């Protein structure tokens, strides 16, 4: 479903970000990418989202070459991927409800569908009572749950989460991972990057370990080994 074919990225300043990375991810997998800061995890995700282009190699998403897509098609492609970030990246002057609804509005979904789906998703991430709070009125864990709600609202094929628990305490971390696991069980592919050994070990799923831009381990039932 996602296939990185010998992807190399050399940054503008000449430092290598990725070197000859080949990864294949099947539908409905739950994949954790681990590694030190600067190992190339975020660069890998940026390649997938077409936020940055590889110096060499190709990234395929369901047999389309992601970087060959014209600019006018890019936003259609991005709707197939739900993004979650370490710093949440909610729109500050929109409420929790509006942040989630925005993703549906941007995708051109009709109003009645939005009014039906958003409360449902808010319940799923356990924020039913805080729908009309602004991000500044929510805790970190709650903000991340809004972000996950936003990521899944358009029923994407993949959820990509860059250090989703990086800013959260253990309780919230556990809750977020629980939600991601639930989403995966409902049939969505999940790709996360993380530093958190506890998170990776407790999942018992596929783990890709990166170091200095290269894939050094790829275990089907992996542990955090560095």
């Amino acid at each position, binding site marked *: 479903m996602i296939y990185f074919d010998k992807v190399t990225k050399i940054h503008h300043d000449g430092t290598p970000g990725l070197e000859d990375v080949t990864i294949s991810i099947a539908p409905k997998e739950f994949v954790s990418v681990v590694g030190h800061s600067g190992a190339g995890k975020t660069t890998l995700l940026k390649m997938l989202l077409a*936020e940055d282009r590889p110096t060499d190699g190709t990234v395929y998403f369901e047999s389309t070459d992601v970087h060959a897509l014209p600019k006018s098609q890019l*936003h259609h492609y*991005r*709707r197939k991927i739900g993004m979650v970030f370490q710093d949440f*990246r909610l729109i500050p*002057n929109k409420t929790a409800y509006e942040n989630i609804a925005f993703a549906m*509005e*941007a995708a051109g979904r009709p109003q009645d569908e939005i009014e039906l789906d958003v409360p449902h998703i808010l319940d799923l991430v356990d924020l039913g009572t805080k729908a009309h709070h602004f991000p500044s009125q929510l805790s970190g864990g709650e903000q991340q749950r809004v972000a996950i709600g936003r990521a899944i609202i358009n029923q994407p094929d993949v959820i990509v989460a860059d250090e989703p628990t990086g800013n959260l305490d253990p309780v919230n971390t556990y809750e977020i991972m629980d939600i991601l696991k639930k989403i995966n069980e409902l049939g969505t592919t999940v790709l996360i990057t993380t530093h958190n050994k506890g998170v990776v070990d407790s999942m018992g799923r596929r783990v890709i370990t990166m170091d200095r831009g290269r894939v050094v381990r790829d275990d089907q039932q992996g542990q955090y080994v560095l």
Partner: protein
Amino acid sequence: MWMMIKRIFTSGAKNFVRSGAVTFATVLVMSVTLMIIGSLIFLSAILGSTLTTLQDKVDVNVYFVTDAQERDIVGIQRKLEGLPEVASVTYSSREQRLEEFRARHEDDELTLQALDELADNPLGASLAIKAQNPSQYEGIVEFLSKDPTISPAEGPIIDSINYYQNKTVIERLTSAINATERAGLVIVILFAIASTVIALATIRLAIYTSRDEIAVMRLVGASNGYIRGPFIVAGVLSGLIAALIALAIFYPATWYAGKALSVWLGGFNLFTYYLSNFGLVFSIIMGSGVLLGALASWLAVRRYLRV
């Protein structure tokens, strides 16, 4: 399509209301800009009216000798009126000129007594000529002096033309009027450019605070047009409100300025000008406000939409 447009409008209006302080600053700066643009309209109106009053005061008088025949004079008047440069020619008979003279010197006993001593009216008839444009007097005077009918065989009928006495004054006035018009235009353009740049910078700053938001919208899969739309709507709203503020402030401002300046400006009243030309001022101010807001937002967002 219609649904997307509606969403862009509601979202733009919501952003406008919710980013209170930034919106307030933007509207304020824009209304100052629009007020400058508006005062340029008033300035050019003042200049224009002053120029016409001044130009009105310039004329050339042709004085005829006392025994000139009225039909000769009328013949010259007809000829002058036939010239395209001439705006009007007014004939004053000898009796009218005498009355005017008496009126002008009614406090001057000595002169009036001297006038009474004379058996006959010493004043000749005259023609007052107004040109369309001050620069055309020279040609009119030349036309007169070359015309054969004014110097028939029985001797010249024109006593004097006061153009030669007024020549330097007329020339100076003409060049002063032209210089003022040109300088006024330059100032107008400079002010307009400066204030527009300030307004652009302010809006760009306001949108700079939203750059992360724009990045998120892109990642969520919003098209560029859908991201840009609400910002442009908010920009247009700022422009509209700024224009209303500027128009509202003009009301007392022109009333006060009109009262204070109307004597000095030869009866020209800014307040009446504002009221009678409200449609024009309204559309210029509204138009500039909307254009400024939309253009500035469009330019500012474009920077953050590049991948």
